[in-house]
């Protein structure tokens, strides 16, 4: 009845880890796409559009992700749009990520010196070329550390998908802990797994940040 924490349990956690990775990838891909749109709208120059985007960002940054998932999961179901849990979570994470990434990238776009845009305009380049060839490549470089930082948040945030029934890493940990009565060991292993997933990213991010800071000093 009460197995000890052994290989099968470890395997179970690993399967949870797979879900964590998958959810992260989906959320990040969705968030990047939508976030780019948010960032562009937020810097488009039309007062009203910028304000609407700003409120959108404010709402999703100002409420817990946990509750956003609840509302998406139950709220969309009420409108008759009955998505499976995966789609609901994907939408929830995407929307949340788009707000955070949108804000990060807005900052980066605005951090590209104004002279760059002016030089591009003076050369007769249009908005699409200015963004694609001049501003975004530089903005992405500037925003990379923050973007990676957010990716780490996202990985950790996927633990909240448990509330709509996903057995991802954190939930798997709870289940195993409940079966084995070894919470410290189990949460230790779970924590270590998150750490192994996140730490290389964090490390990469801070290295990038240090390099950028160095480049800016010059």
């Amino acid at each position: 009845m009460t197995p000890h924490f052994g290989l099968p349990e470890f395997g179970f956690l690993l399967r949870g880890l797979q879900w964590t990775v998958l959810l992260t990838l989906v959320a990040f891909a969705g968030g990047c796409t939508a976030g780019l749109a948010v960032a562009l709208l937020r810097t488009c120059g039309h007062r009203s559009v910028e304000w609407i985007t700003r409120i959108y960002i404010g709402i999703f940054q100002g409420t817990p992700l946990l509750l956003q998932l609840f509302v998406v999961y139950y709220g969309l179901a009420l409108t008759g749009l009955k998505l499976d849990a995966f789609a609901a979570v994907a939408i929830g994470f995407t929307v949340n990520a788009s707000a955070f990434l949108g804000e990060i990238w807005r900052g980066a776009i605005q951090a590209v010196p104004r002279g760059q845009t002016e030089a591009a305009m003076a050369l007769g380049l249009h908005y699409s070329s200015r963004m694609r060839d001049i501003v975004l490549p530089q903005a992405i470089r500037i925003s990379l550390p923050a973007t990676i930082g957010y990716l780490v948040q996202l990985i950790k945030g996927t633990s909240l998908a448990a509330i709509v029934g996903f057995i991802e890493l954190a939930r798997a940990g709870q289940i195993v802990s409940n079966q084995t009565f070894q919470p410290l060991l189990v949460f230790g292993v779970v924590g270590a797994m998150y750490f192994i997933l996140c730490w290389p990213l964090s490390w990469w991010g801070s290295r990038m940040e240090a390099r950028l800071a160095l480049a800016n000093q010059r």
Partner: protein
Amino acid sequence: GTLEDVKKKGVVVIGIQGDNPPWGYVDSSGKQDGIDADMGRAFAEYLGVKAEFVPLAVANRIPALTTGRVDILFATMAMLPERAKAVQYSKPYVANEITLVAAQATPINSNADMGKYVIGVPRSSTQDTQVTNSAPAGTEIRRFDDDAATIQALLSGQVQAVGANSFYPQRLNAAKPELGFEPKLHFTALYNGACTRLGEKEWNETANKFIDQIKSNGKLAGFYAKWMKAPVPTFPESIPGVPFTAQ
């Protein structure tokens, strides 16, 4: 969807608990197991479709049903009048006893004694309702997300007693036999039923017919022997405030 939709799709979506052995839990190989899982599989077989399990946290069971995310709940749903206002119960298929469990050394002999201790319960569970109603005013009741955290809280000493179902002692003693966990107070005997949405007659009738069938053909006795190590008890003909059939 409707019963017809389900049959057409060939899959019935069943809400179940994911981490509450031996009722409903996911085992280490990722398979849904427990007495509720066996019930669910038997039900799917009865319909002639495949079973798809959605593991739900305690607090999500009813919303998942009412918003149509699952077709039916076999999810340790105790039959309580206030819940019957939100969901349609079937006839009972399993019995459960709600008690207050503490270590042997903890002297609790009456409801009034609960006031001296910190009591843990899983939030929004039957235990929560029972302990909240029986404990003297001012008792410190801590509510956790699920049975797992509640049991953990008792084991780690964060609480001194927990509102328990029939299986808590067994699991607590497996973890720390030296403390000799035992039921101190008996609150109520409860019966669990399958849940469908209110007003959906067809689902309710089907569930009842299914339960009648496994009671008579010995299948339920098999589940009981496997999970409860006990014979099937006699179920009441009616429970006040909890209709078994859709009006």
